[in-house]
């Protein structure tokens, strides 16, 4: 079969032309009943285009216009297919391309997960020391506003912060004395702000920019001032290592990576998300041991009892920050306690607070 019927559109006007298509040795010829020659396409320039199942639609590769030839006779369409390399009626070519695409998609997803798992933390770790302290303070203030909103779930009653009412002032003074002694040794590049807040958990929390929250529950559980100081020293470790900023960068990076690449855009909620990250405390095991080591060292330098941090850890089951649900018998906590006791200085420590001051600190949330 060397000729057949077709429909031709010249790509310049919308006119529909019933034509006769002839298959010559080098290509096909399109002419109408009056013998007017409309097109001559070499076989290698013919391409198959998307069309309904009952039709073969052809175009010319590299043509300036969108000229089209439509063949409805399946036998004649098969003849053209056999002669042209770029006509793919069976879809075999497309299927093999498709498998490649699926392979690449899976590869891209895997690499995305790898970047999320290893790349984002690595970038955050390297980027954090480069950030100026002023940026960290600004970030800390923004996160602080959110964190306070999330932590402060009281409906009514006394203020969220302890140490404001008249009866609480002596406690505030005792806390300031304790923190000053630690801060003098720590020599941080930024100013530390420590507040006791009305939350019943025995936790503490460090934010980017040097804000430390000690929960009322921790003061209640502590048996002496050095235990409180030990936990605050641990938190100062997070501040010095800028773990909060790191966590914010990681959270932002992850939400950006997944949000943008997968076609879902989380914009204004970035800070809320960052605050949640800090709250849910995704601090890694390494960050915790590093903060422990820093806290122990700080307690040693300040002449305090570093073992107090270990005894506090045992009391809280290792959960220094909220959201950490590590059980008491968890090997991690035991290992941490052992490590702290090992590096605690043997010299006889001088207590952080006098008995009267400690009693005042115990009452820092006593109310007006």
């Amino acid at each position, binding site marked *: 079969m060397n000729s057949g019927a077709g429909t031709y559109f010249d790509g*310049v*006007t919308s006119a529909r032309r019933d034509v006769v298509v002839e298959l010559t040795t080098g290509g096909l010829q399109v002419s109408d009943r009056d013998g007017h020659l409309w097109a001559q396409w070499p076989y290698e320039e013919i391409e198959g285009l998307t069309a309904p199942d009952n*039709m073969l639609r052809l175009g010319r590769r590299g043509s300036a216009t969108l000229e089209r030839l439509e063949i409805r006779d399946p036998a004649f369409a098969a003849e053209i297919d056999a002669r042209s390399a770029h006509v793919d009626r069976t879809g075999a070519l497309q299927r093999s391309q498709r498998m490649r*695409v699926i392979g690449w998609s899976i590869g891209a997803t895997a690499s*995305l997960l790898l970047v999320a798992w290893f790349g984002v933390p690595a970038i955050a770790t390297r980027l954090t020391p480069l950030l100026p302290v002023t940026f960290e303070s600004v970030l800390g203030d923004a996160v602080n506003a959110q964190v306070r909103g999330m932590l402060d779930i009281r409906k*009514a009653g006394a203020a969220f912060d302890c140490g404001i009412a008249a009866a609480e002032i002596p406690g505030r003074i005792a806390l300031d004395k304790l923190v000053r002694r630690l801060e003098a040794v720590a020599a941080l590049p930024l100013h530390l702000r420590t507040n006791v807040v009305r939350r019943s958990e025995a936790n503490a929390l460090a934010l980017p920019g040097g804000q430390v929250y000690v929960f009322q529950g921790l003061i209640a559980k502590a048996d002496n001032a050095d235990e409180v100081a030990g936990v605050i020293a641990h938190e100062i470790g997070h501040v010095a290592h800028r773990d909060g900023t790191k966590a914010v960068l990681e959270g932002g990076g992850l939400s950006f990576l997944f949000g*943008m690449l*997968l*076609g*879902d855009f989380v914009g204004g909620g970035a800070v809320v998300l960052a605050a949640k990250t800090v709250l849910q405390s995704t601090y890694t095991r390494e960050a915790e041991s590093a903060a422990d080591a820093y806290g122990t060292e700080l307690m040693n330098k300040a002449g305090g009892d570093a073992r107090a941090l270990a005894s506090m850890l045992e009391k809280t089951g290792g959960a220094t920050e909220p959201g950490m649900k590590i059980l008491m018998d968890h090997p991690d906590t035991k290992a941490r306690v052992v490590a702290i006791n090992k590096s605690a200085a043997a010299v006889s420590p001088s207590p952080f607070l006098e008995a009267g001051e400690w009693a005042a600190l115990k009452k820092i949330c006593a109310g007006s």
Partner: protein
Amino acid sequence: MLFVTLGIYRFWLVTDVRRFLWSNTEIAGETLEYTGTALELLLGFLVAISLLIPVYGGIFLAALDLGILGKLSGIIAFAALGLLGQYAIYRARRYRLTRTIYRGLRFHQQGSAWGYAFRAMLWWVITALTFGLAYPFQVASLERYKMRNTFYGDLGGSFEGSGFALLLRGIPMWFLVFAPLVFAVRGFVAVDWKALVDALAQGGDDVMSRIEGGNPGLGAAIVFAMLMAGASVTLAALLYPAFQAVMLRWWSSGLRFGDVEVRSSLHMRHVYAAYARFVGYAILFSIVMGFVGAFLFGVVGVAANLGKVDSAGEIAATLALLVGYVVTALGFSTIYRATVLLSLWQLGMESLQLSGLAALEKVKARGRPASPLGEGLADALNVGSY
């Protein structure tokens, strides 16, 4: 939802779907042809991301600001992304039109995308302020803008649908959805607001009991309001297919290309049938997923009892949850596409009657292919369609 879970492959999928729909759309004996490619879409998406990174960074920095800028950052981000989304919708439409070929000629779209975006944002504000009553006029106005900038070759399009006609059709539905809400609000009017504010201002732990004491009817009013809100949501869900049928019929009957006129005779009961099929298949799918989930849960439970759950087991459980989520999301969206979207498109096409087709015979080629950036933006901003 589908796009989120499919990652890079979504560009190929969307291109496949469009090729299928276009080449099965027949007008006057000739079918449409979609010439867009998945690689174009991928490229457009990558360019869109690189343009959005500064926007994203700016919004992030604005949110860090403690002053007035930080307080307003949520609104600013919402407005900026909304505007950008409308811009993307118009640009994406331009891309799709210039990849649509009919009888060897392409469609194209003129007009300013920013002009459209500002118009659309303004209309959304008006619609929100009028509780949706301005919506028919919004659609009519925006559709007029789109269609008078749409061309098949040198044959210009227009839109003749009237917002008032759509309002008349839609207002019974509007009343059905909003009436329960009005009743709910009326219930609150009876509340003694001064006593309530006083009780709140006093604060303290017994604030709730004092509120209840001052307003014996408040609890009943809250329960009534919740019931009414539930009724409103239920009615909205039940009326949604009818709303879609009205919209589709009104919209297609308003389309014009030169002398070519379109009439639609879409039946509402067919649209309801499509949704009924969706609900049926979705329930079936949920039951199957429920059984699979229960089985897996049992396995994990047994393993936990034997004390075999370690960190590797936790990771496996997390992965299983993730896979389960992806399968569920994909399943529902596939059912939705196969039942509702495909049926609506088919019903819409079959119910069309065209007149004045002679105008299609002497059209001349015009227009150039447009960049896929709009599609990429729409995808990244999650305002894309298929």
